[in-house]
């Protein structure tokens, strides 16, 4: 049983480009240059119940558009979407009862009223019984540590406090599927950690499926075993984070600090790997495969006098950046 099934999903937007100048504006009045923009381009994937999936991509890659189709906000141009066994847009009102949504840049709560009043309204809207509410929300409120915030109006909360309340609000009806669109945007490290820990907990406790978009790779590393990577509306990678790291992030960067100046030619003739200059000609960085590490260090140490060496793993962030810059190719 899949929580999300997506097949050849496509969303096109019609947009018109305006001509420049006043004369152009007049021409636009009569004929417009329409352009079809394919925000999501025939993507297919499935997500199993209980999985935590990171949905990543640059701005404008089509992440939000996909999420909006999965949550029933937008109608797909073509393709098939089945989420929790339903068609999100067709059966919207019944469907949204089974999902929770957090948009990091938009508030779900009422601005003027106290947090607990917002919760009470949502409890009514989602038809949650008092018993279920108390049982479930007491735990959520405690874990997210928002008890002291409940009687304050939302407009008086800090971003971190608000975000924790938003998360709690999305969970009032204890949905089996949770969509989080940049939930940690603009938050400090402590709040981020708290939110991650909380998400892990509900995933374990209720087997909640979580689909997460974020620009913060540490979120993905902390939470998701699987990532789906999107570029210009197409899926360019779908698999485990581990696999991604092994394929594109294999190898280490060794940073050498030499006592004397050296040139790139000297170093390349000594060991044939990629050398990159650091701040000056005393500092050089070698990009090597993990297996060759000992050999490279041995060679360098025996030929030159060194002040310092350190070895660094390639971060996920760099891997992702490399993939976007160079395109996907199996290295």
């Amino acid at each position, binding site marked *: 049983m899949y929580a999300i099934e997506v097949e050849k999903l496509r969303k096109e937007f019609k947009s018109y480009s305006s001509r420049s100048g006043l004369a152009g504006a007049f021409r636009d009045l009569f004929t417009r240059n329409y352009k079809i923009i394919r925000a999501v381009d025939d993507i297919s994937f499935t997500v199993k119940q209980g999985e935590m999936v990171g949905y990543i991509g640059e701005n404008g890659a089509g992440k939000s558009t996909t999420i909006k189709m999965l949550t029933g906000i937008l109608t797909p141009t073509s393709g098939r979407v089945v989420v929790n066994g339903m068609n999100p847009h067709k059966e919207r009102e019944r469907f949204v009862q089974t999902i929770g949504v957090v948009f990091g840049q*938009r508030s*779900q709560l009422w601005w003027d009223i106290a947090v607990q009043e917002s919760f009470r309204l949502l409890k009514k*809207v989602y038809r949650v019984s008092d018993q279920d509410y108390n049982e479930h929300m007491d735990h959520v409120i405690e874990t997210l540590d928002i008890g002291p915030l409940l009687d304050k109006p939302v407009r008086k909360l800090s971003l971190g406090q608000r975000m924790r309340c938003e998360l709690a609000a999305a969970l009032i009806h204890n949905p089996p599927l949770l969509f989080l669109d940049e939930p940690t945007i603009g938050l400090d490290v402590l709040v981020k950690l708290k939110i991650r820990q909380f998400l892990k907990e509900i995933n374990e406790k209720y087997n909640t499926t979580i689909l997460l978009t974020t620009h913060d790779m540490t979120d993905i590393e902390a939470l998701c075993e699987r990532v789906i990577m999107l570029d210009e509306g197409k899926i360019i990678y779908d698999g485990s984070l581990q696999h991604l790291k092994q394929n594109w992030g294999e190898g280490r960067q060794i940073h050498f600090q030499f006592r004397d100046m050296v040139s790139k030619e000297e170093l390349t003739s000594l060991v044939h790997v990629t050398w990159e200059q650091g701040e000056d000609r005393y500092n050089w960085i070698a990009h090597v495969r993990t297996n060759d590490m000992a050999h490279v260090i041995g060679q360098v140490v025996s030929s030159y006098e060194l002040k310092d060496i350190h070895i660094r793993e390639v971060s996920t962030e760099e891997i992702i950046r490399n993939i976007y810059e160079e395109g996907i190719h199996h290295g």
Partner: protein
Amino acid sequence: MFYMSIFLQYMSQYIKTKLQYRADLFVEFLSDLMFQGVNLIFILVVFGHTQFLNGWTRDEIIFIYGFFLVPFALFASFFNIWDFNERYIVRGEMDRVLTRPVHSLFQIVLERMELESLLGGITGLIIMGYAASRLHLTFHWYDVILFVLFVLGGTFVYAGIFISLASISFWSDARSSIMPMMYNIGNYGRYPVDIYNRVIRYILTWVLPFAFVGVYPAAYFLRKTEWYTYSFLTPVMGVVCFTLSLLLWNAGVKRYRGAGN
């Protein structure tokens, strides 16, 4: 039933919020009252010069005005969604609305309600009472039922027109300045339509049926038998207008493109 309990929940929340800002509430109430005062003075000034307007007496026109205020107050309290495009489409609030298990229009009505506008309805009743006593009108017991029906009909005519206008936002990104114009046209419904040119009368009856908010239903209570057909059409027009606007709205929601973020 579920919708009723949600409605009550929102309403109690609304009242709680409003009571927090007492000064604000007071000012709003006062400006509302002044607005209606100005309208009434306008009618009195017009009749300072003539006693009859195409066969209608001053008191009859005041009665129509009073009647008009009641459905208008109901409309203004619940369906006043003139800023829908700005607030929900441009700012993307519609996204949030669409992720909740209640009909989208109903949610927006609840979020935008302004119960203090109901006071206008009370002013309306007082004006009607004043005019009725000067006209020596008599009422039957079933007139109360008809009054309620006609008021609801008028409210739904008004609501239907404004919901349809709001639905246009789903198709066009442009901010429209139609809304203020509509409020002006809406005011024409307060005067006897036979004082207007035929085309305008036709428009106010069948295209933008604002006449069903004021003159037509009020004519029944003024015992203008020649208008009775129109009077009794009021609830029908209300249902038709509102249904059409709902269909338009639902079609619009399917077209909703969302705001980029």
